[in-house]
């Protein structure tokens, strides 16, 4: 049984110690740095550069109810869904789910009521379904997923080979990865499932927020995991056909990852629609900004980044609530009882501001640094030299990506043998771990904007990352290292999966991940992950598949929940050109997407 969460506001710094980012644009002729606001935003994404909005205690309490949502007992029957409602749901779900910065691994096909009925029948035939597949869904989101592949996974192909044998073993591993989707290190495969778990959790909240509490999502993951996937092959093939998954897409690894039925419920949640929109705009901001650690800033960072805002601690009760949220999620997605959830989900906490914590952090950093050294030392020269040492440079860059900074650092993971003994599919447990981490992070992020005073960007925030775990996994797989969690859980054969760092009373970076992702011209720019709806969501209507918000030559330029006005500005309230977007034509947004059968 999931436990309700309590609101634990974080005491704000005294007025004299409050610091905001005070972001500025680079002046004409001035060289831009990462601390300047971007010159423009050119994107179809619903996110944009957003700022956090202060929530009242009441609004925060409502937001916390979203972190222990029950499964819907049933649906009252299909209700008309407008194009705008589905756009907002997509914006809070698949278009903003946490993923690695350069990975686009999810797509969704949305089915209308009639196709949802067909899907419900098929879901009902699946072995291992976590709950009853309901009839009467208004729509169904079928999420497709593919294996995690990025420049980092390319680099992994070259790691851990013997000097001469590498000429044969590197291509062999490359081919296995391409055609059999076998990863170089296990945690790369886990990333796909961590992301899916996070998305599943987010889809539940998205359905509620986009409907003001009148619709809930019934999300299924288990039948798409491990051996159940094989046992359900026949039914899955029919589902794949329904959503138009082609053989070409299958060949590069696309599969159904989860299914979310969304429908109206008899007893809507008691949420204030206005509060829902404010919370939703905040959720987009959490996915838009990068927060700074508040300690250990680089020297060239502007003064606000260097300022400590009084005590940087957070109440212990908040940490308890964050843990409760993580266990809620693990319990919810695996179906185990609370005690089992507490036993299975392994978490180590490092309090960086204490002497013991500092020591432990140093130890972790040294271990990860050693892995990087070994990677560089053993890189096959026949691959590295012709590419101008691109692989070595990539590995070097990892040092920064794997740096851990924050007041509290959590390492989360599982023990494979214990998961097996509990009778859980491993991939499902990994997904639940991802959901637990994301939900726990959300507690900190929501409390970080509760009663947020003027002059502060946030009171707390979380960075969630898998990079340190992957680096540790390289060490485990090739260089004889032990798992990051081995010290805290020496007798339980743990597998660490995610690291999250809490940063309190600090500033938000004006160019967060979003800028890194959206601006291809920027040095070191990554792939644009924040895709537009037309790139990630397809609607099945009248037997055909149409991209969301791509019509008559137009694609989306609307920022979701723009009415909340939380757009990044400089101190003079000047905005980033293109950031505010332009609303989708109302005549199209108000259209009901699917006729509701009488």
């Amino acid at each position, binding site marked *: 049984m999931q436990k309700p969460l309590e609101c634990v506001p974080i005491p704000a710094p005294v007025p004299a110690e409050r610091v905001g980012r005070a972001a500025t644009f680079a002046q004409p002729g001035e060289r831009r740095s990462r601390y300047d606001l971007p010159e423009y935003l050119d994107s179809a994404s619903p996110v944009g550069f957003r700022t956090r909005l202060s929530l009242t205690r009441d609004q925060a309490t409502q937001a916390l109810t979203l972190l222990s949502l029950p499964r819907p007992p049933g649906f009252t029957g299909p209700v008309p869904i407008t194009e705008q409602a589905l756009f907002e749901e997509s914006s809070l779900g698949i278009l903003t789910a946490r993923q690695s910065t350069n990975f686009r691994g999810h797509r969704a096909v949305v089915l209308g009521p009639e196709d949802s009925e067909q899907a419900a029948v098929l879901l009902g035939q699946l072995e291992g379904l976590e709950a009853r597949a309901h009839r009467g869904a208004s729509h169904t989101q079928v999420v497709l997923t593919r294996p995690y592949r990025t420049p980092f996974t390319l680099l992994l192909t070259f790691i851990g080979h013997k000097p001469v044998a590498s000429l044969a073993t590197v291509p062999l591993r490359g081919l296995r990865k391409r055609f059999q989707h076998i990863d170089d290190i296990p945690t790369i495969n886990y990333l796909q499932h961590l992301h899916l778990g996070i998305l599943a959790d987010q889809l539940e909240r998205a359905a509620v927020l986009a409907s003001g509490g009148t619709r809930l999502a019934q999300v299924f993951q288990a039948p798409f995991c491990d051996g159940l996937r094989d046992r359900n092959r026949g039914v899955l093939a029919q589902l794949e056909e329904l959503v138009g998954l082609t053989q070409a897409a299958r060949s590069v690894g696309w599969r159904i990852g989860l299914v979310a039925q969304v429908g109206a419920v008899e007893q809507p949640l008691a949420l204030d629609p206005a509060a829902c929109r404010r919370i939703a705009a905040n959720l987009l901001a959490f996915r838009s900004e990068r927060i700074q650690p508040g300690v250990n800033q680089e020297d060239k960072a502007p003064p606000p980044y260097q300022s400590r805002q009084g005590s940087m601690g957070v109440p212990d009760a908040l940490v308890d609530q964050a843990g409760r949220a993580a266990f809620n999620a693990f319990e919810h997605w695996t179906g185990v009882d609370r005690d089992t959830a507490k036993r299975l989900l392994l978490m180590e906490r490092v309090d960086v501001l204490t002497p013991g914590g500092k020591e432990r952090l140093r130890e972790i950093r040294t271990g990860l640094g050693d892995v990087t050294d070994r990677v560089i030392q053993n890189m096959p020269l026949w691959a590295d030299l012709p590419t101008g040492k691109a692989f070595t440079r990539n590995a070097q860059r990892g040092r920064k990506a794997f740096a851990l900074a924050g007041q509290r650092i959590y390492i989360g993971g599982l023990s494979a043998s214990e998961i097996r003994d509990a009778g859980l599919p491993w991939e499902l447990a990994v997904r639940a771990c991802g959901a637990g981490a994301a939900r726990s992070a959300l507690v900190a992020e929501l409390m970080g904007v509760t009663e947020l005073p003027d002059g502060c960007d946030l009171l707390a925030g979380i960075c969630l990352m898998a990079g340190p775990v992957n680096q540790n996994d390289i060490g485990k797989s090739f260089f004889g290292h032990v798992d990051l969690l081995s010290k805290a859980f020496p007798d339980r054969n743990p597998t660490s999966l995610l690291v999250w760092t809490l940063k309190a009373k600090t500033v938000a970076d004006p160019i967060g991940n979003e800028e890194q992702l959206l601006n291809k011209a920027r040095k070191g720019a990554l792939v644009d992950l924040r895709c537009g709806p037309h790139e990630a969501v397809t609607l099945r209507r009248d037997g055909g598949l149409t991209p969301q918000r791509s019509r*008559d030559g137009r694609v989306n330029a609307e920022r979701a929940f723009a009415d909340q006005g939380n757009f990044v500005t400089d101190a003079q309230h000047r905005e980033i050109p293109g950031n505010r977007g*332009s609303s989708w034509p109302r005549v199209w947004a108000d259209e009901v997407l699917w006729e509701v059968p009488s």
Partner: protein
Amino acid sequence: MNRHFAAPPSMTGLYLRAATKRGALGDGQTIPRLEATLDKCRADPADLAAYRQVCGFLPGDHLPATWPHVLAAPLHLALLTDAAFPLRPLGIVHTRNRITVHQPLPVDAELGVRCWVEGHRQHRLGVEFDLETEVGLDAQTAWSSTTTILARTATGRPAGPKPKREDPPPGQAAGLARSTVWRLGGDQGRRYAKVSGDYNPIHLYPWTARPLGFPRPIVHGMWSLARCVAEIEEDLAPAGWTVSVAFRKPVLLPTPVLFTAGHDGDTRTFALRTRDARKVHLEGEVRPG
């Protein structure tokens, strides 16, 4: 001079004449009143659909506010290539436009078009004149437009140095309702030419634009205006408003441009700028009346 047309004149012949016509205003000379009328015409549904698609107008029961310009374009050209028109049409620049929608124009309405030009004003770079257009519906003026044109090749004398503009601060002003980037392709001019019939070479290819002083083709001013109006069309009443626009700087294709829109009381403002908002291509406003 008043020329009546039963059907729109052929643009091909008019373009040939425009390309070869010479002329300049002599001292004390001005543009005489020249008028052209087209008695009856209707919008072709296929042409209209293509126009909506290229300009971003939504399907609807009324003609897009900028569409009558397409109807009037052959008459405009007929006036500018008339023997009595004293200026060389090639190289003229569309600098401003004002359109008033007095009443909505149903898509299937039978319309009459009347255009005229008369007189001129001195401009720093030449002479400026207005091309007036009225569209009638049931014997009433339903739509009217003033197209202001600069003839740089005329005998106009510089009326002073180019006014200096201060560099705007980075970013854009707060309070805008819309701010979005459009990516215009290299074929944007050709696409609009196809639906409007305006095949002025400056809009088509680099090699056709270069001899006329542009390194790359430039987008049609009327497309820019149409696209801007299309973006805010849902914010506007079907009729009873006037849109005014000033074309500040040509949009060289291909390029991204920043569209912004806001409002100040009853007046809606909009602009097309470079992507970083630092240079203005077009500024406009819509006022009631």
